[in-house]
């Protein structure tokens, strides 16, 4: 192989490697690595349909009720609410008024059915996204009210 050809091959290989890496990173984003959707986003129809995703926010006080092993509660970012249905044992740290992240999907009946419910490890903390969602919602309420 001539040096010039070799250089071409190397450059092409580098581009291919960068392409594969970029694809993998994009795939990571698509598979919903980090972000969860807020109830406002769901109400706006931004959440995916018929695909599992995560929802995050606060458990609205006084909305938790059980029907056998199935629990119903409302996740809120204070401006919009989403009712979550979950069959199974709720984690110990699950409390009303605390932060929660639930993974599941929206069924044909339009209800969010969770397959996993995660409470935050530390009660005093709140996920930053949930917090900023709450902050933003409050801001929006403030500007709307007067």
């Amino acid at each position, binding site marked *: 192989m001539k040096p010039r050809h070799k250089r071409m091959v190397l450059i092409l290989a580098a581009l291919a490697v960068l392409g594969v890496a970029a694809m993998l*990173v994009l795939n*990571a984003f698509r*598979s*919903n*690595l980090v972000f969860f959707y807020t109830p406002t986003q769901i109400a706006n129809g931004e959440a995916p349909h018929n695909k599992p995703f995560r929802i995050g926010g606060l458990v609205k006080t006084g909305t938790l009720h059980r029907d056998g092993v199935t629990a119903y509660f409302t996740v809120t970012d204070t401006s919009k609410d989403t009712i979550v249905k979950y069959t199974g044992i709720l984690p110990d740290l699950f409390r009303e008024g605390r932060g929660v992240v639930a993974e599941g999907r929206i069924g044909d009946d339009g209800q969010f059915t969770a397959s*996993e419910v*995660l409470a935050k490890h530390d009660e005093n903390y709140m996920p930053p996204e949930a917090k900023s969602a709450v902050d933003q919602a409050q801001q929006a309420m403030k500007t709307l009210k007067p």
Partner: protein
Amino acid sequence: MSAFFVPFKQSVQRDLLLAARHKTELITALFFFVIVVNLLPLGVGPDPELLRKIAPGILWIGALLATLLGMQRMFAPDHADGTLEQMALSPQSFTVLVAGKITAHWLVAGVPVVLMAPLLGLQFDLSARSLWVLTLSLLLGTPVLSLIGSVGAALTLGVRGGGVLLSLLILPLYIPALIFGAGAVEADLAGLSIEGHMSLLAALAVLSAFFGPWVTTFALRIALE
């Protein structure tokens, strides 16, 4: 293609033969891994709930330190006895020979750790699925550790206080691999999809597999000057 595979194979075989003659070194990394991972429960207490939660981190940090152990010796003996010079002057591509040496390091230090990890994971009460994820994440992640480490090993070659310096240089660069690797296992424990973490780990592996040997060769040429 044979211009790549023949010298690569030669280089790997040579280092494996040398490693086979130094059996203690081979066992040291593995033993270190087992000991470190087993010491931590003694430090934090035997609460199974807590142990399961910290297991991914412990196993990953153990693997990371175990592979770091032999890192400095990746090039140092060859540099000391002049073999590295001969490799740099070989008609074969130096980069390919270096890639072979990195691969040999992974086979000697990384693979045993990957194989041992599920056994140790059992001690932390991980589910079968999580053990798979752990093994898979280490399988993708340990090559990244060897590849990034090789750059550090080449930079600190023949330098005063090389061992400590090497850790200072490369441990910060290990953080993404550690986070995504342990994160994949943690995500699985939390019942979430591991795809995101695995994708990112694979991206790191692909990038470092291509650029790692190249940068290492560059650093080695500087060290040989």
